[in-house]
């Protein structure tokens, strides 16, 4: 059975039908792309998948668990992690602490254990540090571990956000326009990195992207949204040559 199964998902804001009758099936280990013109409802879909918005109708199953309408933290615990279109780091925390915050539900001790500095605090903190540094090494951020996140250059902030998302040990990783604001070189590097993340962590990835080079380069399957409606779905090469899709992007 597929890792993510979305059926008839829809949401209305007042009279506006932002997303309607949206279906999505992602097999484990896939790199899946969600594309569409501006305002098509892509981020709205992400927000429904992560519990920021409650869908008006439809169901979402992750690994056969019904996660429809659950809270963000429960969905994160169930195994969906995300990054944001406009980077949302914890700016005043160090790079290392950002990743350790991602480990919040992986390695635990109580507030009392922290205040009284019980042995469990030192044990778990050590483990957290090791895990976080390991992740930072993967993303080539280990040199910057002590720097405040806001002082990182843009490209590295994007990387850190992905590292933080991976720290929550997800089954499915959602990337919202990871290449936004990047130059072609950085985009190339990002493509490599996304593939690498998929292979190294055995991750399933769903990404929203405008950069067609990136989409056609790494996504195996695509869904195209237009005005909240599904326009096309299938193998990347087929979808990108679909006349309907070309029309939606370029006009008649």
């Amino acid at each position, binding site marked *: 059975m597929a890792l993510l199964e979305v059926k008839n998902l829809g949401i209305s804001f007042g009279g506006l039908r932002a997303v309607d009758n949206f279906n999505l099936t992602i097999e484990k280990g896939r790199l899946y792309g969600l594309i569409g013109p501006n305002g098509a409802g892509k981020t709205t879909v992400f927000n429904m998948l*992560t519990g*920021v918005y409650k869908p008006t109708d439809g169901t979402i199953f992750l690994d056969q668990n019904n996660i429809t309408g659950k809270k*963000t*933290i429960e969905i*994160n*615990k169930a195994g969906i*992690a*995300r990054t*944001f279109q406009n980077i*949302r*780091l*914890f*700016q*005043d*925390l160090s790079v290392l*602490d950002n990743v*350790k*915050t*991602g480990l*919040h*539900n992986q*390695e*635990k*001790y109580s*507030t009392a254990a*922290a*205040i*009284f*500095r019980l042995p469990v*605090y030192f044990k*778990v*903190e050590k483990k*957290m540090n090791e895990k976080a540094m390991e992740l930072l090494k993967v993303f080539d951020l280990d040199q910057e571990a*002590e*720097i405040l996140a806001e*002082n990182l250059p843009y490209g590295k902030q994007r990387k850190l956000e992905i590292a*933080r*998302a991976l*720290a*929550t040990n997800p089954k499915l990783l959602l990337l919202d326009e990871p290449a936004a604001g990047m130059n072609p070189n950085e985009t190339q590097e990002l493509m490599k990195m996304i593939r690498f993340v998929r292979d190294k962590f055995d991750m399933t990835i769903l990404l929203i992207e405008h950069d067609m080079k990136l989409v056609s380069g790494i996504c195996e399957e695509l869904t195209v949204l237009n005005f909240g409606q599904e326009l096309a779905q299938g193998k990347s090469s087929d979808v990108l040559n679909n006349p309907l899709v070309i029309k939606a992007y370029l006009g008649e």
Partner: protein
Amino acid sequence: MNRMKKEFQKIASGYQKKLSRFSKPSQNLINTIGMVLLAFVIIQILGAAGALSFSFSNLLVGLCIYSIVAVGLNLCVGYLGELSLGHAAFMSVGAFSSALFSNMMQNVIPVAPIRFIFALLVGIFFSALFGFLIGIPVLRLNGDYLAIVTLAFGEIIKGLLNVFYVGMDKTGLHFAFIKDTTQMDSTGKMILDGAQGISGTQKVSNFTIGIILLILVLLVVTFLVNSRSGRAIMAIRDNRIAAESVGIDITKYKIIAFTISAAIAGVAGVLYSHYYSSLTANKFDYNTSILILVYVVLGGMANFRGSIIAAVVLTLLPEMLRGLSDYRMLIYAILLIIMMLLNWAPAALERREILVMKFKEKFSKKSKEV
């Protein structure tokens, strides 16, 4: 300019690594506690030499009280990122509950230090309880709205304490919200007399106890902040949506931070009620709350040492200016404005950073030559 700033930060972090064997947070804690202990020792020596005036030595416990409550509020404002304008009320809860306890137990627990320890626990418990209960509705709000509601709760607590009467006689305790309805017999004694408050609590706390409590509070908050819970609290401050997306329970950690912050204000309250002979609820109004907030803002968000320094300076300042009589509060206000500017104007911040860098460069050259 921005690039320069980043360069400086890089250099600064380099120095930090070279200079300290400890990690940065624990280094900070050691520095802060060192500063407090140094001040303590100096004052003790001056006191022994007889160089302290009576009015100054009377202020010392006040310095501890306001330092403690400023540190507590900084946890709420600087680390949780929520403005509380009602912290004086948590102080009063700690003060009144512990003073009631001490007065009730005067004969049951005759040893004053032991009674004080229990009173401290009672004060912490009740202020934490109030922080928790008020936190549940209040922390559903954000920013300005939260600030206004904490202000309202603060005034409610003050108002209730002003009409609260507690008396004790042979049969036990009597509570009432109208004085004549306490129904005590003739042997009864009023402990809490409404707006007159509590008077005659035995003076137990002193400067040493104040310093000990301040250091304990510093340990608690620093240990809290540098932990899993502390990171969660700061993550909520920095980006609520991102914090939720990594599975942090926003409500839980907001309430934890707010409750601990209220409990620390309670500690300051206990110190207060066991030092000053009279205790009235009107002392803990929104003026006091805002004064505490001024300490936190002047000392710097998320900077406990700064809170302590600001609390000490701004408590001493009006006393130092006493000679100016009528102009006292005017000069005080002007000095406050100047201090804020010198401390936090962006241009002043940059200038200061550059100066520190230059100083460090010179210092490192000298140490190399040696």
